[in-house]
């Protein structure tokens, strides 16, 4: 959440680009060669589903020659028979050997040897926005039998924490993802390979989800370092259930801020009154101030204020930004107290 953690990967990526530029081989592969090479490791997966809008197919990526396939954890894998088809038409029975429910990554094992694999680079630096990428997946199931998966091109549009859902289902992963500028939120795409123009695996295409903030369908991929961590955890038996997404709410009344009552779905967080003698009063907050941020996080609704305060640890300094007379005013409210009884 701090600007430091946002910037570090960017610098690293820039550095990497410069280093790579220096180490440019005499001739880069053509896009066709790059795609053909990587697509050998992309697996069409057929499993459970096919009813009520859930597809029965997705995509996976071979990550070692002995047959480990990473893919997304989904209902497609809820099946005794998981068919995995390579781009040369070879068909394998996939066995689910484990999953990381937080990152929603699963590993399947195929009985094979010397299979074409894309290495999982645990130390791969995060890509910077603007990096050209290729997405390889069995979108809409259009590739059948020995047909190679479909390739799409795009760039990394943004690198942001995932905050998404589909219907009532809230995505448990809250870490960074690559937002892509090509449309990958298609049936069959989840689990596809995101590769760079040198053919290296840089991410795993995510599920069909909508952004919480705007409701738009997301085109995103899990960065390869997170995929590698998930893989390592699964193989080592460390993968654990997701920590429950923090849903703690903290009523700002404990700081002396009484907001307008929640009459609408998302009432704007206008301050109705400030309790005399409270931290809010000491900090100079006033009635009719409109709260716009809590510790830098935008709070477009009354509920967002409670969630933003709830996400802070007890004792964390609370700084709010309000709009007053057409200007932003920042106020420090001191440490967040423990929850003051039921809100």
């Amino acid at each position, binding site marked *: 959440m701090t600007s430091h953690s946002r910037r570090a990967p960017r610098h690293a990526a820039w550095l990497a680009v410069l280093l790579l530029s220096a180490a440019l081989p005499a001739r880069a592969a053509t896009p066709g060669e790059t795609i053909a090479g990587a697509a050998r490791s992309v697996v069409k997966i057929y499993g459970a589903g096919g009813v009520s809008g859930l597809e029965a197919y997705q995509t996976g990526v071979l990550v070692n020659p002995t047959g480990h396939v990473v893919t997304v954890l989904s209902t497609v894998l809820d099946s005794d028979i998981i068919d995995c088809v390579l781009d040369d038409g070879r068909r394998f029975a996939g066995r689910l050997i484990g999953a990381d429910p937080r990152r929603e990554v699963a590993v399947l094992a195929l009985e094979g040897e010397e299979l074409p694999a894309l290495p999982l680079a645990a130390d791969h630096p995060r890509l910077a926005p603007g990096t050209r990428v290729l997405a390889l997946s069995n979108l809409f199931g259009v590739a059948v039998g020995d047909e190679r998966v479909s390739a799409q091109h795009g760039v990394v549009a943004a690198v942001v924490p995932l905050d998404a859902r589909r219907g009532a289902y809230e995505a448990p992963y809250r870490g960074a993802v690559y937002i892509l500028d090509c449309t990958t939120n298609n049936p069959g795409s989840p689990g596809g390979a995101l590769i760079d123009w040198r053919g290296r695996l840089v991410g795993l295409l995510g599920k069909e989800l909508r952004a919480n903030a705007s409701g738009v369908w997301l085109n995103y991929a899990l960065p390869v370092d997170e995929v590698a961590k998930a893989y390592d955890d699964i193989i080592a038996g460390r993968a654990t259930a997701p920590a429950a997404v923090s849903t703690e709410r903290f009523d700002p009344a404990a700081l002396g801020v009484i907001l307008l009552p929640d009459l609408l779905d998302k009432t*704007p967080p206008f301050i109705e009154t400030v309790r005399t003698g409270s931290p809010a009063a000491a900090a100079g907050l006033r009635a009719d101030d409109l709260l716009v941020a809590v510790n830098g996080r935008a709070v477009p609704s009354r509920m967002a204020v409670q969630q933003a305060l709830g996400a802070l640890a007890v004792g964390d300094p609370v700084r709010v930004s309000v709009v007053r007379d057409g200007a932003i005013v920042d106020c420090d409210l001191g440490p967040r107290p423990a929850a003051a009884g039921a809100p």
Partner: protein
Amino acid sequence: MMIGGGMSRWHARGSAVFRGLIVGGVVVGTMLLAVPSGLVRAQAPVPDAGEMALAEEEAFRAAVTAVAPAVVRVEPGTATAALNTRTEAAPSTGPSTGLVLTADGSIATTSFAVPADVTEAVVVFPDGSRGVGRVVGRDDARGIVLLQVAALPAGVVPPAAWVPRTELAVGQWTIAVGRGWDATAPSVAVGILSALHRSWGRSVQTDAAVSPSNYGGPLVDIRGRVIGILAPLPADTAGMNAGTELYDSGIGFAVPLEDILRVLPRLQAGETLKPGIIGIGYRSRDPVNASPVVAVCRAGSPAARVGMRAGDRIVSANGRPVARVADIRHVVAPLYAGDTVTLGLERPAGDQSPRALTVTVELAATLPPWRRPVVGIVPVRAGAAEAAAAPAGDAGGVTVGWVWPAGPAARVGVLPGDVVVSALVAEADGVGDAQAIDSAAALGGAIGSVEPGRRVRLTVRRNGQLRDFDVETAVAPAEIPADVPVGDADPAAVRVMRLEAAELAEPVLAIVPDGGTQDPLGVLVWFDQPRGAVDGEAALRTWRLAAARHRVAVLVPGSSDPQRWGREDIATVARGLDALRARRALDPGRIAVAGSGAGGAFAWLAAERLGPGVRGVALVDAVIPRQATIESAEPGRSRAVLFGGTVPDPTLREADRQRLSSAGYPVGTLPVTEGAGPPVEVLCTWVEALGVL
């Protein structure tokens, strides 16, 4: 193209981008830039596709770096966004983007981020600090909003360069930049310029991913020069979210910065720029291919003020030849209310060749609601088929059935039996051409095109002689006159007709006077309290006398749900009307819908759904349903509204009257006797009176 002197400093040809590339040490990137050809080393090796891709990637990032200091995040509005219902297809809220236009803090964004009723928005700068952007101006024709912040943080500056329209080429790289995803790092989406002329000339199109997150952000070329501002701009619809359903679809729009800079001083001065309206309707509804012949010229419109009128053919607009309606749109849509457009016209002149005219029209933001002008002539009934087959020459014209008591026509001496053969609507200069009248619709069109209070000269044939009457027009009345002539038809010659259609489970019952196809009937649809099926014999007893006296077919539909009227019942009525039309001639000028209680409120909804063919609505013991919207009356969309009986909250009814009246509808009172059942006689009289012209 007039471009203010203050903007030329922007036009610095992106030299900063070049420096950035060289400092970055990525020399290959420069090969892709549009360097003047003389500077390209002739012996440079052609890069292979892989190298090309990576070099382009460098150029994309350099372009983003160049414009990034001008790009800010705009937080979603609070109050308004909360009230909008987010639909599946079209997002209506979310973090968005803005583009700094001036060093003193003017920031452009879109009406997506800052809807019409929002007066300030929170802006997040690249360093994470926040500011309040006060709305100073709006371009409602393009969905652009200008914000003003008190000050910009250090390092936040307007774009170094922008691209004039003339330098744009379809197929060139375009990069969409936003900060909706992350205020501190600009987002990047890459595509090409798909089209230069979209939204009737108001935008250019790109296949880069454009969505709420980068609306308001710049679309830049490969050198980081701003092409335009990304906006959810649809070609043909209006409304705050229109166009958002196209997000991330490969169809994205940007308003050229050149167009925004041209009006920047006006936006900074606090203006709201509105799309410009001429105030005419065309004969065909095909907006693309139709011939641009004026069918309606709205009273009080810019077109009417310069003397345009029905029949005029537009042959040029601002010097550009016009052959189709679309050609006019291309000229007018980019303009604003207050701008002028010069139209070349050809006006029919009888047997002679058309007269050429040139008019200069000042476009308006809105039109006054249309109040239908009449002269108080009620023609004898004519079916649609007869009107089309009206004989020409001496036998042509429209016969006056009766004249409105003490109406304008009566005052100047027009009598029943007179035949109106031509109408002359004088131009502003007092001269004009008479229009031959061959149908009630033509007479209605001629009278309807003048402002109430102005005169129309009617030429009337009486006893073989032609006489002229100068008649002053008046706003169409809503009340029912006392002395409406009635026929002496036999009430026994009225029967219950079962209107069946393939799609109908149950036939619709209608009380229909006997007669032939030469005897067009008025139509009244009566919605009673919902009670399921209708007793045909009882309905016949109720309506027979009034239906016979006034030659009205009364449809008495049942409700498919015995408890309430439902949407499907409207479809049933529509099919019933079609079935009736197939069997009997109907007078298109005398179709009305009425109802009582729940049926009264439903009558309003039914009239809306049945369309402009419904000329009157009467609500007994009912008010207009709250969910109904009332659009301003327009030619072809106006109806008389009558209220009768009582309602629990009279203030609601008074509010209805005021809404309707200010929207241009004639509103009147329906005399109702409490507890006496449907006011059959007065309703059928009213149907006859609706035919007034």
